[in-house]
């Protein structure tokens, strides 16, 4: 299994600012994903972070709001831009291997926007 770490673990931000969340995996992985878990709701996939190319976004999520980088096979960042209180959520990084079809999750970043 992969061990995933995220930074920061939590943050409180002001409306209109941006926050970049970092995700580090302890081994090279094919797939990296970013999810959002809003209070009382399930996990929603934001995008798939592709190494060496633009991220693939799910319906309802756009690159301008959630720019993603993936410079190598072990690291990715998600930026939450121009934040509003509606962005308050837990953001989770996940990685997986296509062959094993399993995904592992980071501890999450708890974001509160005032």
């Amino acid at each position, binding site marked *: 299994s992969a061990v*995933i770490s995220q930074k920061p673990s939590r943050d409180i931000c002001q409306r209109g600012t941006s926050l970049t969340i970092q995700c580090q995996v302890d081994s090279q992985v094919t797939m990296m994903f970013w999810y959002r878990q809003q209070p009382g709701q399930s*996990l*929603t996939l934001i995008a798939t972070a592709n190494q060496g190319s633009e991220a693939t976004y*799910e319906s309802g999520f756009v690159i301008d709001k959630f720019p993603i980088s993936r410079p190598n096979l072990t690291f990715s960042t998600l930026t939450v831009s121009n934040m509003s209180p509606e962005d308050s959520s837990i953001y*989770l990084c996940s990685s997986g291997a296509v062959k094993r079809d*399993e*995904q*592992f999750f980071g*501890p999450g970043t708890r974001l509160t926007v005032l």
Partner: protein
Amino acid sequence: AQSVSQHNHHVILSEAASLELGCNYSYGGTVNLFWYVQYPGQHLQLLLKYFSGDPLVKGIKGFEAEFIKSKFSFNLRKPSVQWSDTAEYFCAVKPQTGGYNKLIFGAGTRLAVHP
């Protein structure tokens, strides 16, 4: 669109009681099925998975789940729960055919086990 339904949002049990958490999905093709667990203050962990073969799968900590294809269900069971099973449980489905092959999560079931 594909979806995953978990019937109970909150379940409260006493220790030693039996547990069954329902999960149904809406997708007609082949799927891989998962149950994840999130203990308080911890990250999401894989509890068990089903890809093919015996529809009754066993996971960690005495949990098992049964895939019933005709009912599009993948219910999670444990014969006797412990206080340490207090957690949130998520069912997830990953279509293997068609255009969308990403994990789709249910809304989660929050289980509280009282001593």
